């Protein structure tokens, strides 16, 4: 069965998946963390209380989380075309991936920051800390283990999303499994691509868990 596997295509697809997931994880963190911070600090009784802004942010986040990922991909074809000049290929696929995962991660960030002991924030304010530094020196460092384990979950989700994005022209292992495996009646190809995705997920989960445990000083 495996002699029919086109290893060149497999490695190329693996590279594409790593590229897509890598880029989109980076931007997901880049957008998700500030958005999560915004959701927390503007809430009632928090350091930058602004319930109006909080509600607007929450509605936007909920919108992107409610739309099914595959619909998001189709939705964002024009956006991808505008931003990266094409709606095909791994780079274009990162646009819907980020749009789908950043709000998801923002909610995780929100939960992680809310878990930070209010007493510690109060202590920092009592010491004359600015609100900005309460965020950078208290909230974020105290929540780091939860932020890392949340990013792990998000990254795993991105791997499965990327397989889906691949089918609509993004490339990567999902695309390879579908086109060279399923559609070409090549079971070996199908299994190899599937297996590589599983290995990737396991690896990322392991790295994330280890890192989070190391950082946790509680």
């Amino acid at each position, binding site marked *: 069965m495996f002699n029919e596997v086109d290893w060149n295509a497999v490695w190329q697809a693996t590279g594409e998946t790593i590229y897509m997931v890598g880029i989109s994880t980076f931007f997901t963190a880049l957008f998700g963390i500030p958005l999560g911070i915004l959701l927390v600090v503007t809430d009632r009784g928090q350091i930058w209380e602004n319930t109006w802004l909080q509600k607007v942010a929450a509605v936007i986040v909920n919108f992107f989380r409610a739309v099914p990922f595959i619909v998001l991909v189709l939705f964002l074809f024009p956006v991808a075309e505008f931003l990266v000049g094409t709606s095909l290929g791994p780079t274009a696929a990162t646009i819907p991936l980020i749009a789908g995962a950043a709000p998801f991660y923002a909610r995780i960030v929100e939960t992680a920051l809310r878990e930070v002991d209010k007493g*510690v924030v*109060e*202590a920092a304010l009592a*010491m*004359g800390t600015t609100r900005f530094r309460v965020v950078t*020196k*208290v909230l974020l*460092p105290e929540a*780091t283990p939860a932020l890392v384990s949340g990013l792990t979950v998000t990254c795993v989700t991105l791997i499965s999303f990327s397989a889906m994005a691949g089918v609509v022209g993004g490339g990567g292992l999902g695309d390879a499994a579908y086109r060279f495996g399923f559609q070409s009646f090549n079971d070996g190809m199908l299994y190899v691509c599937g297996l590589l995705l599983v290995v990737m997920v396991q690896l990322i989960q392991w790295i994330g868990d280890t890192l989070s445990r190391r950082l946790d*000083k509680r």
Partner: protein
Amino acid sequence: MIELKGIGKVFPARRSSEAVRALENVNLKIGAGEIFGVIGRSGAGKSTLLRLVNGLESPTEGSVQVDGREISRLSEAELRAERQKIGMIFQHFNLLWSRTVWQNVAFPLEVAGKSKADIRKKVDYLLERVGLSERADAYPAQLSGGQKQRVGIARALANDPKVLLCDEATSALDPETTSSILQLLKEINEEMGITLLLITHEMDVVQEICHRMAVMEEGQVIETGEVEQLFHHPTHPLTRQFVHQVERAPAESPSGVRITCSSQSFPQVWGILQTAKNNGVTVNMLGGEVSEEDQITFVLDGAQEEMDRVLHSLEEYRLQGEVKSRV
């Protein structure tokens, strides 16, 4: 040093709760270098009172002055600068668990923009002073309650404050540790001439270190005066109750049961004892036998069946390290 005049504080109504009048016409004057205790039950408004002093709460009416400056009229930046001169310690310590002991004490100095060299010198000195130099690289999670509060104290003193606010600072500690922390606070007061304002619901804390005290009930100060004087001639019934609290210190009963548990199983044991308490069992923590490291001893007295129930529940939970014996 601290002057409260005609203070009123109302927490406005919110969707889930009605407006709460937390403080009503509170007047207090605390001199420089004084140790002043405010005692009251939970909900009496003492926590709000304390937070007025460093502007964590602002009064609905009245004026709060610290060292001649009106706290509520300061701009945000001025208030931050003022807060660096008002230290605060907390019941639950409120240390950053992601930072080591050393880094926790360095925090307020970083906030104040001190140089690296100044920070190093000051933190080393403070840790030496509170007796924790050896635990400098430990994380708060690795410390006992008493040690955590020492870190809290070192942190609060970092910017040489003129006032130290103590928010139920010993309420989460066992009696022996409480005394050592109170001792430390007393020494700091004497050495540095710092003004201490502490709130508590424990009369022995006030008795041990305070010069003057105020008793609070339902947002009002009902009695103020020298601790000695209030102790011997309490006029208000609530003050009398607090005084009584101290006089009825742990008495051992010959018919009781003695339970010793490790600090690890303390939360569960405490839960069981709370239930017993509600069923009319007298529970006393034995002051003399509580050690900071581990063993905590309780003496119980009450109806035979209730005592049996306590012992039974302890067994049921298979609590490790606890030794039970009939006295």
